[in-house]
Every structure is written in C-alpha cells, then in structure tokens.
C-alpha cells in the first residue's frame, strides 16, 4: 500500500485492531456514560469501575477463562452489591453519600486485589492490568477464527459491549431520558424510573467488564465521562449528544494511535489524553459561543433563552 508518512501506523494490522478495540470500548462506555453524567452519577461510575474487580476475579476462578459470561455476572453482582451498600449506608446508616462511596468502593477494590494475589497462580489477570489495562498484549493474545480470519478475542468482547450498549440506548431511549430529566413524570407515565436506574447501573457494570481488561479501572472512568462531557458542550438534544459522544470515542481512539506512537506512551492513556484534548476544544468552542451569545443577550432575549 502507498500511504502518506503520517498514516504509516495504520498499515500495521495489530494497530488497526487496537484502534477498533479502543473505539468499541469507548463507544460502549460513552453511551451509558451520557446518562450517568446527566443524572449526576459520575462518581457512582467511579465506584462501579473499581468494585467490579472482586466479581471479575471470582468469575475467573469459577470459569477459568477471561471471556466467559461468569465474569460479566460476577462483575455485575459485585457492582450491584457496592451500589446497594452505598445506598444503604447513605439512607439507613446516616453516612453522607461521598463518604459512603469512598468507603464502599475502596473496600471492594482491596478485596479484589487481595483475591487476585491469593489466587495469583490460577488467575491470568495481571495486577498491572488493573491500573494500566492490557490492550496491547491482549491484541496479540487469544484469537478467534471467524470466516478464516483470526480476530482478537478482546476485540470481539468490546464489540459485543458496544453493540449491547447501542441496543440498550436505542430500546430504552425514552425511558432513560424521562428518568434522567423528570423522574416524577416518568413515574406518572408508568416508566418506572427506579427500574430504569437499576438497568442503567447494570449496563454500566457490564460495559465496565469489557473496558476493565482493556484500559484498567481508572481510565475506564475517563471513557465513561469524557464523551458525555464533550458532547454536552456541543449540543442540546439527547440523540445529538449520544451521536457526538460516539463520535468522540471513535476520534479519540484514532488520534490516540498517533499520539501513542509519536510520544511512545501507553495506548490507553493516549486515547484518554486525546479525548481530554477533544473535550477542551469543545469547552473552548462552547465558551466562545456562550460569550458571543451573552453579549447579544442584552439585545435579544430570544437567543439567550436557548441557554
């Protein structure tokens, strides 16, 4: 192939798999992330991203492989347990929500690390991967043969996550929007906001399971929050926000490849840093537009009313 110099990284097949995996992971996280941010539950996402660890390890011990439904089940269960614990401490125990979150997720995370070390000989999950993610090694890891082509298992799991998240948002769109903006109205319409919230948390836990081995606990939080934060500064309506969030995931995955190669850094971190740069650009654009608007607001209340 004759590619220009700056596109050279794309000629390496495993780079393309890396970008595809990261894009799918970012998409999978970004879609439920929009609703987490809208509902001011980002730090619940943080708690979830850490507390899926013990469930992952237990699921691994039961099934013995990194891609089995036990992992998702275990992670969803431990995530669910943590959220319940936080709510119980907050509502029945009189602990403030921030302290309850801090106590619960660190306890779960340390339990996970302890299990990981205790069964280190049987669990094929590197402790490093908890913080860094292991996308680069996973791409070279297990391949699954489909139509004569070896496809990395990690890509398939992240693509599955993205597809599920997309389906989830498509099918439950009106429920999610109603529960995010007006839970009382949602309850009146029979859209049970409580169930919607539970579904959203379960979906988040499930996508975090696919993101965790790829980018680690903390950077999967970035993939949850950054697309939504960027999109919320670009547009107003939820479908547009979802679309921009998805686009943000794709763009930061692609740009991350160039940054990772140019600066010689971890690919997951590069994706997050590119995502942060996109966010800053969106914020600058928003501030610029907002300033222009607030100047004209003196003359026209109509345009000001849009904000």
């Amino acid at each position, binding site marked *: 192939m004759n590619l220009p110099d700056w596109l050279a990284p794309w000629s390496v097949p495993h780079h393309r798999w890396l970008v595809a995996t990261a894009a799918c992971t970012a998409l999978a996280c970004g879609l439920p992330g929009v609703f987490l*941010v809208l509902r*001011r*539950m*980002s*730090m619940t*996402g*943080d708690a979830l991203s*850490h507390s899926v660890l013990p469930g992952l390890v237990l699921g691994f011990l039961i099934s013995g492989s990194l891609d089995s439904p036990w992992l998702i089940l275990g992670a969803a269960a431990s995530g669910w347990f943590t959220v319940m614990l936080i709510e119980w*401490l907050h509502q*029945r*125990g*009189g*602990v*403030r929500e*921030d*302290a*309850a*979150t*801090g*106590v619960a997720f*660190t*306890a779960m*995370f*340390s*339990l996970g*690390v*302890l299990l990981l*070390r*205790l069964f*280190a000989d049987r669990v094929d999950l590197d*402790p490093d991967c908890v*913080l*860094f993610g292991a996308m680069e090694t996973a791409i070279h890891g297990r391949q699954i043969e489909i139509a004569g082509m070896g496809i990395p298992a990690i890509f398939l799991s992240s693509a599955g996550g993205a597809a599920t998240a997309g389906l989830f948002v498509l099918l439950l769109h009106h429920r999610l929007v109603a529960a995010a903006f007006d839970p009382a109205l949602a309850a009146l319409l029979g859209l049970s906001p409580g169930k919607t919230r539970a579904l959203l948390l379960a979906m988040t836990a499930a996508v975090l399971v696919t993101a965790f081995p790829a980018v*680690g*606990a*903390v*950077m999967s*939080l*970035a993939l*949850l*929050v*950054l697309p*939504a*934060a960027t999109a*919320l*500064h670009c547009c107003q309506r939820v479908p547009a926000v979802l679309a921009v969030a998805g686009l943000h995931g794709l763009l930061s995955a692609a740009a991350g490849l160039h940054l990772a190669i140019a*600066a*010689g*850094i*971890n690919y*997951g*971190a*590069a994706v*997050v*840093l590119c995502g*942060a740069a996109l*966010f800053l650009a969106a*914020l600058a654009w*928003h*501030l610029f537009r907002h300033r222009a608007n607030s100047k004209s607001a003196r003359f026209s209340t109509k345009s000001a009313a849009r904000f």
Partner: protein
Amino acid sequence: VNATAAAFFAAGWIGLLCGLLGTFVVVRRMALTGDMLAHAVLPGVVAGLAVGPDREPWLALAGAMLAGALGSLAFSSLQRHSRLKPDAALALVLSVFFAAGIALISRLQPAGVQAFLFGQIAALDRRDLLLLTLLGIVVLGFIPAAFRVLTLTAFDPAFARLSGVKVRWLEQLFFLLLAAAVVVAMQAVGVILVTAMLVTPAAAARFCTHSLAKMAWLACAIGIAGGCLGVWLSTLRENLPTGPLMALAVSAFFAIAAVAGPRQGWWSRQRRRRRERIRITAEDLLKRLWRNEEIQGGQPGHLATHQFPLIRLFRPALRRLRARRWIESPAEGKVALTPAGREEATRLVRSHRLWERYLTEFAAYPSDHVHDEAERAEHWIDEASRSALVEKLGDPGQDPHGKPIPPAPPPSPAPRRT
C-alpha cells in the same frame, strides 16, 4: 532498621496522619475530592521521580504538590466555566490526570514508581520514614493548634471569614498538608486505596461520637490500629499485599462501628427507636385507661390488646408503666391507674384535645379529621406547648367533639421527656 518494625512504624504514622486530616475531609464532604487529589498527584510524582536521581522522595513530593494544585485548579475552573456538575468535573479531572500519569510512566519508566501505584510499605527507606515523621509532626502540631478555626471553617466558612479567619490561607495550608499526606500514604497502600485510609477511619469515627475533637482522635486510633493490623496480617503468609490488607482492616473497623457505634451505629439507633416506640405505646395505654375511667367511672378492667398498633411492644410498655408506678394491678389480669398515672394521662388527653381544638380553629381542619392528627401529635406536645396552646385558644373548655378538656394537673416534679 528492622524491616518489619519500619513497616509498623510507617503504618502507624500514616494511620495517624490520614485519620487527623481525614476527619476534616469527611465533615467537609470532600471525600471524593480527596479521591480526586490522590489520583491527580500521580503525574507529578512520576515527573519528580524521573527528574531526580535515585528516587528522591522530596522531589516526588514537590511534583505531587504541583500536580495536585493543578488538578484542583482544573476542577474549580471546570466548575466555574463549564456545564459540568461537580461529580462529572471530579470524575473527569481524576481520570484524565491519572491517564497523564500512566502516559508519563510508560514513557519515562522511572525507578520506584511501582511503590506509588500498588503500595509497598516494605520498600520505604530511611528518607521516606524521615519525611513521614516530619510530616506527622507538622500535622500533629497544626491540627490541634488550628482546631478551632478549622472547625469554624468546616461548618460555617462565611462566618469564619467575618470573624477574621484567613479562610483562603487556611484552606491552602490544609490542602498542602493533605497532598503531602496523600503522597506518603500512596507509597504504603497504592494510588487507589489512599482514599480508604483517608475517608474510612473518619467515617467510622463518625458513628461513635458527635464531638469533632473526639472524632478526630478516634479516627487517628482507628487509622493506626487498622494500619498496624494490616501490616501484621500481611506478615502471616508469603505474598500477601500490605496495602489492600490495611484498607480492609480499616474497612472492618468501619463495619464494626457502623453496627455497634455508640451514637450513630445501627444497633444504638435501633435501640433508641425501640425505646421511643415503647414510650408511645405506653402513653397510648395510659390514655386508654383514662378513657375507661371517663366512660365507665373508674372500674379497673382488662386491656384489649388489639387496640394497640405495635402489639409486640405491649409487654415492654406495661413494664415501663409499672416501673414508673403509673399503673397497678388490683386483681389478677386487671390494671388500673395510680394517682401519678392519672396525672400523666390527664396531661396526654389535654394535649390531644387542645391540639384538636387548635387544628379546627387555626388550621381549618374539619372536626372529623383532627383525631388521627392529634393521636400522633400528643406524644410530642410538652408543658410549654400546652400553655402556649391555652394562651392562643383562650382556655377552651371543650374539644371539637364536645368532650371536656381536663384541667391541668399540678406540674410534675421531674421533666418527663429527654
């Protein structure tokens, strides 16, 4: 230095530091801000380690403070200028700074960064222990000396400012100490579990006391005990991680305090609630006996238990009434009011009927809707409220249903309720 002794020494100091500072972090609702700080210092630590030779702890500390300051600057400016709510701004700063740290690590690969990521208390050397001790002494001097202004600033910053406290300076100083404590604690428990050492002991202490000073010392004690317990547990077997065990140890203390804490713990709150319910049932019982006398003229009779909603509290309520000598049993299975019990019951009925009267006259209730309201309110109306009601209503003789409001008995010798 003996390695185990050094580990215990470090765990104790870290528990003390984090307990003292964490108390203010928890009462100021900054637990997640502390979490953010713990992640945001990472790029600074990495840069500090990479710049200096031989992983100089002072350079790491300086870098961490710089990065921490940048992180909280980013957080506050996001809050001011963007549409993000505080939770999203926190999550964003936390994860992006952490990613920057990971990027720096993968680029520079400085020696000794593993200790900061995963915590290796055994890897702390003389210089780290010196730094830790110095920091501990500074915090031990600063917090008690500035305790009053810190408390004032935590609970009412506007009033603190008006009283001449240099709130901004104080906050900057507190922030610097917090960042320093976060950096040293990181080397023992790892970047993610710093939050546990900072928040969990203080949150546990909160179950046990209402006084901030006691809470601070208790948090210290829990931090020290948890830290040392974690180190001890990790020596029991090969290959056990110290950091997570320390975090789990303080979490265990938290769980114990949440269940058995003498003030806000689950058990004591449950007991308080039960005592209150027993009081209410007992008062309902007294009132029932009084009504019997009003209707039938003082025949001691059986109590129909189905009239009391909290039936399983019936026996404890009877015990309470007997203990206060408000009822007596003239014959087997029968109960009657004593003179003191009659006075007490009169007060209750007075509260009930005065409140019914008040609701119809001043709150526009129809007279057939007031009974249930009064049935609830009577347990909370004290002598002062009764006289206020009498003053407002001009000493009415009857309740809205035409029943007489009994005259006030002579004031009771001791206040009935706490």
